[in-house]
């Protein structure tokens, strides 16, 4: 009996601890639920309020098509629906019944350590769908946001779920290049398209010399930059601006980090600098002293580690304590350009490269929404500013996909919307001079559509992250 009481007592004390700590979680959860509810309301409101605006948008679309394809437009004048769309039917068609919705999906990293990157992407997709309105009288839905888990496993599992649903036309995602390498082949083979707002690995598109990357698949597009440009930007900054001639790079084996570290190393050597070490760490490593000592043996003046949290925390924290790295300049990329990392004391004084997010008055030509308007809606819906930089890229990607669906579809005699899968790809392939929130978008032959503008910022104070994000010390645009 006494023992029973002892055990009960222990359970009681444990559950009290759990309750004390659990309350904050509940609060967060209920806040999130509220926020989600608000978002849903806002979407409905937006849909009602902008019923007129939608008509305008549709007219705009037709205008855009006129400019792009005068021949198509002539056919359209004949009012023969069958001829009024892109595509030859070679990849099959999606038939949307009257009253049903056009199905697209968001596939982003929305849980785990990288949720800071995926959540703004998903919300960008949802806002674009709401702003865009109907396609030929048919509503559009991005359904339940899918999770790529920022891993190849997650990307593959979600892609299998997507390709099993033949109503889905295209996917906006993934967030992580690692997930895309697994998802892209499946999406491509199913005849769907995939436009990512934040994949940056060169392997997913091309080497910019006309050779497809090892993980390129037809039907893959992205509005994010190719990391060959980010690597080149960082290399130019280190070599020309900082005037340093030796550098090392650390990656974590992920396609994104690996590709960027290599791109930086190659560009830095091409400029005439010396790359002392390019080495990998494991994502779950905590003790970085051995690997940093390996780096220190080459005495680099700069250390570029385009990795994620938490591994990045440990590198930044432990590097100054390793003999030979005390004065080495620490640099990171957009994976660590997050509030969670920049709040840490050890990130002070570092430089970060990332996409140029000074969107100013840029406006998406399909929805007519400007960057400022987007951000106002975003903050109203979610109660916070976007936690990562790629919301605009995801927004433009979604608008481009919906434009493509519009261009590749017709309403048949039974009132069904028929979408030609090949036509969607044809439209995306032909995009040139598209005005998006991120700037002018041109798609090349391997799906690279981004504006490729990169900025480097200097992070002076962990207490004022916003000031650091605006503290642009170097800009890069491909020549």
């Amino acid at each position, binding site marked *: 009996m006494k023992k029973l009481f002892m*055990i009960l007592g*222990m*359970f009681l*004390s*444990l559950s009290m*601890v*759990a309750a004390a*700590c*659990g309350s904050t*979680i509940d609060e967060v959860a209920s806040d999130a639920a509220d926020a989600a509810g608000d978002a849903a309301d806002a979407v409905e409101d937006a849909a009602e309020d902008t019923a007129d605006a939608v008509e305008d948008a549709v007219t705009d679309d037709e205008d855009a098509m006129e400019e792009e394809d005068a021949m198509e437009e002539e056919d359209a004048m004949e009012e023969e629906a069958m001829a009024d769309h892109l595509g030859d039917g070679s990849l099959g068609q999606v038939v949307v019944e009257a009253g049903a919705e056009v199905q697209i999906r968001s596939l982003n990293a929305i*849980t*785990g*350590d990288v*949720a800071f990157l995926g959540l703004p992407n998903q919300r960008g997709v949802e806002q674009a769908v709401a702003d865009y309105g109907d396609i030929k009288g048919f509503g559009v839905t991005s359904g339940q946001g899918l999770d790529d888990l920022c891993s190849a496993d997650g990307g593959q599992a979600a892609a299998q779920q997507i390709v099993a649903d033949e109503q889905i036309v295209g996917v906006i995602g993934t967030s992580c290049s690692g997930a895309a390498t697994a998802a892209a082949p499946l999406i491509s083979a199913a005849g769907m398209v995939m436009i990512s707002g934040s994949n940056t690995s060169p392997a997913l598109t091309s080497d910019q010399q006309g050779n497809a990357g090892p993980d390129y698949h037809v039907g893959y597009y992205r509005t994010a930059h190719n990391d060959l440009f980010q690597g080149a930007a960082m290399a130019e900054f280190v070599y020309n601006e900082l005037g340093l001639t030796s550098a090392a790079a650390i990656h974590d*084996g992920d396609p994104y980090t690996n590709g960027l570290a290599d791109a930086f190393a190659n560009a830095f050597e091409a400029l005439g600098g010396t790359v002392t070490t390019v*080495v*990998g*760490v*494991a994502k*779950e*490593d*905590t*003790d970085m*002293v*051995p*690997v940093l*000592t*390996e780096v*220190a*043996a*080459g005495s680099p003046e700069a250390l570029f580690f385009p990795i994620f*949290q*938490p591994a990045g*925390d*440990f590198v930044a*924290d432990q590097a100054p*304590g*390793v*003999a*030979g790295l005390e004065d080495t300049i620490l640099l990171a990329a957009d994976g660590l350009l997050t509030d969670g990392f920049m709040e*840490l*004391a050890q990130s002070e004084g570092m430089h970060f490269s990332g996409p140029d997010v000074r969107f100013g008055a840029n406006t998406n030509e399909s929805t007519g929404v400007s960057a400022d308007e987007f951000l106002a809606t975003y903050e109203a819906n979610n109660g916070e500013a976007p936690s990562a930089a790629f919301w605009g890229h995801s927004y433009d990607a979604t608008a481009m996909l919906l434009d493509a669906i519009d261009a590749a579809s017709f309403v048949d005699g039974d009132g069904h919307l028929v979408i030609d899968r090949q036509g969607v790809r044809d439209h995306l392939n032909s995009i040139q001079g598209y005005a998006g929130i991120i700037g002018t978008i041109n798609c090349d032959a391997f799906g690279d559509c981004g504006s490729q503008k990169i900025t480097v910022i200097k992070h002076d104070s962990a207490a004022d992250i916003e000031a650091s994000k605006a503290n642009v010390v170097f800009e890069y645009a491909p020549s």
Partner: protein
Amino acid sequence: MTAAVRVKGAPRTGVDWFLLLLRVLLIGLIVIGLLAFIAQQIDPGNAFAKWTHDGEEASRLTWPQFRGLIVTGLSQGAMYGLIALGYSMVYGVLGFINFAHGEVFMVGAFTGFIMSTKFDEAGWWDGWIFIPVILFTILVCTLVATATAVIMERVAYRPLRGSPRLIPLITSIGVSFFIQNAVILLFGPGAKGYPPNPEWLEETIPGLGIEVKKLLVIIVAAISMAGLWYFVERTKTGKAMRAVAEDKEIASLMGIDVNRTIVTTFAVGGAMAGIAGILWGILFKSVIATTGFLPGIKAFTAAVVGGVGNLGGAMAGGVSLGGAEALAPLMLLEPLGVEGPSQLRDAVVFTLLILVLLVKPTGLFGERLSAEDRA
């Protein structure tokens, strides 16, 4: 375990030759790697170094770098040793591997996270008040980890007492998943950051070149181990534990409460893991629900390397494992021309395990098993 050693005079079979070859190969690689390391420290441009580094000169390690590796290896190894004690003691008494022990360590680190965040909000995680605060935090982490281990024993393992050994082993894997997911449910799946350490803790001791926090970790670990040794070897309860480990039936005939002794074993092992947990937090300032997994596996390896059931062995195993993990990539692999040797850290650890088992199947300091296990 003894099956791996050939009986004297018996003819060598193919397997024996293979094992012999493996032993010679591994030891040969270590010797060559060490010699190459020494050679390139003396002359980075020697012929062998040039051959392994594609014609370029090797780079020397400076003394501060070398010292940094040793210190990081020691502090990491001290934590492995603390965790390994729990594995070793439970194995010694009950004869099964408690795979959930890594989670006890994680619970300790999480308790430290909660305490340190609260103290930081109160402004007590800084300056000199940090010293009493950290002692109190260590105490609470120890108590919570102990409670976790004891509840684990009561709920999951005691009902299985007397069943075949495989059953508690599998149960322990289940317990491990249960605790991990319970923590995810309570705190979410993301990494939780400790508040910044007081500045004096991050400083380097002049002359010695050791960071204060690493010294703190090593000292606290050493005190805990010494305390445990005193408890097991010099107190009556410790004597009872050793008696139960030796032979449960005879111990109970001698009037020892076996169940109570087993609970004590779990409690003491849990306490050591709890201390390791808070030290981990101070050193790395970050904890996540899966924090216990890899250190748990490494600590288990350390327990086997040192000799299962042997407390001194577990400590020495932990320290040597931590040291090997820190030093081997740059002292053995890099001189042999392996690219990116630090990525092979985990491989080094488990190769070390294989090597120890090949050369000395009972671990460096010998197993201490109960009568029924030896039979």
